[in-house]
């Protein structure tokens, strides 16, 4: 390395010696994952409904996933080339999700028109 130590970014240094990070950080993340799981369990236990329920579930889910990927899977310290290669492709799934939600509304509507609301009662018997 020709550059002086202070120009080496912390991430690169950590990488050179393998993924070595303060053990305290792992304990903090571990604790946060417990708290977030308990919070999402509470959402169900408290019988929250509607928009509040869905948004809380999604927020806790995203935070948990982010913590696991960033710290436990060391993504926060990887090269940007790898981070983008891994994280960008799954975003395409949101497109698939959007298309299928639109399609499912149409399918559901068609079923109600074709078979009527009574289809539900017949199937339930």
């Amino acid at each position, binding site marked *: *390395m*020709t550059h002086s130590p202070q*120009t080496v*970014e912390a*991430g*690169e240094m950590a*990488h050179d*010696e*393998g*993924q*070595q*990070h303060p*053990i305290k950080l*792992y*304990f903090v*993340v*571990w604790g946060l*994952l417990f708290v977030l*799981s308990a919070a*999402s*369990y509470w*959402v*169900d*236990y408290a019988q929250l409904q509607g928009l509040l329920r869905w948004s809380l*579930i999604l927020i*806790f*889910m995203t935070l*948990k*996933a982010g913590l*696991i*990927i960033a*710290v*436990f*899977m*060391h993504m926060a310290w*990887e*090269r*940007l*080339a*790898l981070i983008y*290669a*891994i994280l960008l*492709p*799954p975003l395409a*799934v949101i497109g*698939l*999700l959007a298309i*299928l*939600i639109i*399609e*499912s*509304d149409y*399918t*559901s509507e068609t079923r*109600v028109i074709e078979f009527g*609301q009574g*289809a*539900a009662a017949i*199937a*339930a018997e």
Partner: protein
Amino acid sequence: MESKLQGQEQTLAQQGHSGFAADWGSDQRVFKKVSWGKAMMWILLLSDTFIFACFLVAYLNARNTTTVDWPNASEVFALHIGGANLPLILIAIMTFVLISSSGTMAMAVNCAYRKARKATAALMLATAALGAAFVGMQAFEWSKLISEGVRPWGNPWGAEQFGASFFMITGFHGTHVTIGVIFLIIVARRVWRGDFDRDQRSWMSAGNGDYEAVEIMGLYWHFVDLVWVFIFAFFYLW
């Protein structure tokens, strides 16, 4: 400062977006300083992400298209303990067990890089034990639902697609956990024997003191936990 560096050193030193462009634009390996083993594990996990995503999206689609009510997961997965009806209790315990196993795995990776051989092996075995406990609880959950009449083509509480979605999604995840437990034991055994401390190459280690196999194993294990985060949110809580 970066512009003063020449050639190879320049690409190695670059971080951030200029480094990203340099990595992808170079006529060499893209993931510089990322070992093949780690890159391949990430590519496996990326493909697995798409498989799980397809299952979950298909399940949400099925759930949206039924004119029959979707069974209430909160009630379906409730247990009667000591006279009280606790909603989702088994799923909550399974979630905490899996998170704990992720914690012990992270500790194992940390110990591996400090070359604490026995602590690493012990923590990996603890992770495997928690994973096995998770699979055991899943087997209990499956047999309970099967005895209540849940089948891939129907169930007593409503939409038929519930059974197919449940067995497909949790079954595929459980298979991943089981494979993880087996591999944890295999890697832990090698660590315990001191294979990675010897100057001996294998498909897991480049020789003396190369413990990266533990981190790669960790990537897989954390991914299994990560998938459960999405299943927990979309299948059990939604």
